[in-house]
């Protein structure tokens, strides 16, 4: 699987209040949340972002609260993937569990500017900046996590597991 898109670069420690402020947490409709994605970091972001775009960030992306609404807001804004130097752990779990493509790669933030085009080969973990002609490799995904991803998320994994147990 390959994904290609336009890049938006963010810094270190982008927190979940920044990704989706708490004032919108009374809904979990992805479209509604997507309209407010990154609102307190960049108020115009949701009007500029296009389906298939990719976020590139520094360290500790998604720190703060456990709100899965942060992943929903990113998906609802049409963002195809998040590439970061590191992720806060609850955000990372939420992304894996619900099938948002997230890859960790050392130095990824320094390789991109906003507006560049990125191509990501999910299987090999290759990340290519097509604008600048530079590439790097994401950290490999552990086998167990790959199993959840292959099942189509944690709930599909649960369904499969219950079916297997019943047999």
């Amino acid at each position, binding site marked *: 699987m390959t994904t290609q898109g336009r890049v938006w670069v963010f810094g270190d*420690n982008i*927190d979940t*209040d*920044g990704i989706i*402020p*708490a*004032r919108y*947490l*009374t*809904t*979990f409709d992805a479209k509604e949340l997507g309209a407010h994605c990154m609102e*307190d*970091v960049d108020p115009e972001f949701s009007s500029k972002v296009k389906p298939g775009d990719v976020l590139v960030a520094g*360290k*500790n992306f998604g*720190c*703060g*609260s*456990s*709100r*899965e*609404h942060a*992943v929903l807001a990113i998906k609802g804004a049409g963002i195809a993937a998040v590439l970061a130097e*590191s992720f*806060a*752990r*609850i955000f990372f*779990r*939420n992304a894996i*569990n*619900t099938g948002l493509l997230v890859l960790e790669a050392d130095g990824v933030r320094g390789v991109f500017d906003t507006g560049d085009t990125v191509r990501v080969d999910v299987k090999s973990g290759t990340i290519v900046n097509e604008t600048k002609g530079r590439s790097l490799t994401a950290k490999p995904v*552990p086998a*167990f*996590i790959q199993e*959840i991803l292959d099942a189509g*998320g*944690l*709930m*599909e994994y*649960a*369904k499969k*597991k*219950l079916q297997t147990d019943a047999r």
Partner: protein
Amino acid sequence: MGMTITEKILAAHSGNKQVRPDDLIMAKVDFVMGNDVTAPLAISQLKKYGLGGVFDLSRVALVPSHFSPPKDIKAANNVRVLREFAKEKGIVNFFELGAAGIEHALLPEQGLVLPGDLVIGADSHTCTYGALGAFSTGVGSTDLAYAIAMGEVWLKVPPSLKFCYEGKRQPYVYGKDLILYTIGHVGVDGALYCAMEFVGGVIESMSIQERLTMCNMAIEAGGKSGIISPDATTEAFVKPRAKRPYSFYASDEDAEYERIYEFCVDGIEPQVALPNLPSNACPISEVGEVKIDQAFLGSCTNGCLEDLEIGAKVIKGKRVHSDVRLIVIPATPTIYKDAMEKGILKTFLEAGAVVSTPTCGPCLGGYMGVLGDGEKAVSSSNRNFVGRMGSPKSEVYLANPAVVAASAVAGKIVHPDDVQ
């Protein structure tokens, strides 16, 4: 090779003799918690995927806390989802208004989370219960849904970091100050994915409340969990309220730690985390002149009886500054009642504070004290990110309850000694 307390609990819950950092395990959970923000999404996932079972009706808690009493129609409907799900399934621990409070104060108070437990909660501050000697961590709504149905959670065994505190604390230095100091030392990702184990003479001398405060903020250093070995203080707290048996675990002498930090607390002043990260901890003597519009005493970090007592002691017989709104929120109905009986609420009201019903409300800019453009607040809560308590143009300074109360009187951030 020895194991840490965290590794022992995780091994015991995953059917392993031994686990090591980075092992991926499927672990049985003892208790699962969701609130009015995270549980509606989990319940919708369970319905969507046709998973109808609940692993154990007595080991799931649904706690309306963030926007409860409901702030608007959507919030009321979210609580309805929790209420109806609890009724339909027969979940015992749904906390209706009157019994509901902030989950991280409520569950330990009610004896629902216990030493040796493996607890997950769909709220990042679930790490709080580590103060009782449990492994406890925050997850999202899908993990919550999975755990409600299956009674288990996938986990990567975290490396442990040991934080040792020795020496004698200065007056007005509490668990809150030590954890802010620690986060300032390691940074907001300094404990990323790790278990933070707090040890040493200072920890041993701490009340359960202070221990809860320290473990509560492990997440602000990126930690997966915070944990303190249970001892006589833990036993005294847990024994009268435990709803089921529990076990004490302790780290082996030869357990392995990724890093060990040793702090002498003698020179540590009350700490203030400056905007906009909890790691911007600063000794109060170096904060400078910061005028405030609001002071907030409450939250899962510092909303317990002991915290209110500390604040009331500082403010007794004084008046809140005319430019400041002081908002006091007891974390649970029991704390509210105890504070009322002890005259603590009267002290605050006489000083010109407002005392509100138990809720997370202002801590996350939800309601009951949202900040406007350009406003500054000193808060006993846990996060000071941009826009955390309201306007993205507002600023939040994190401090302990005594500093919050003193600052409310002075109209600016001050050391409690400055208003005595």
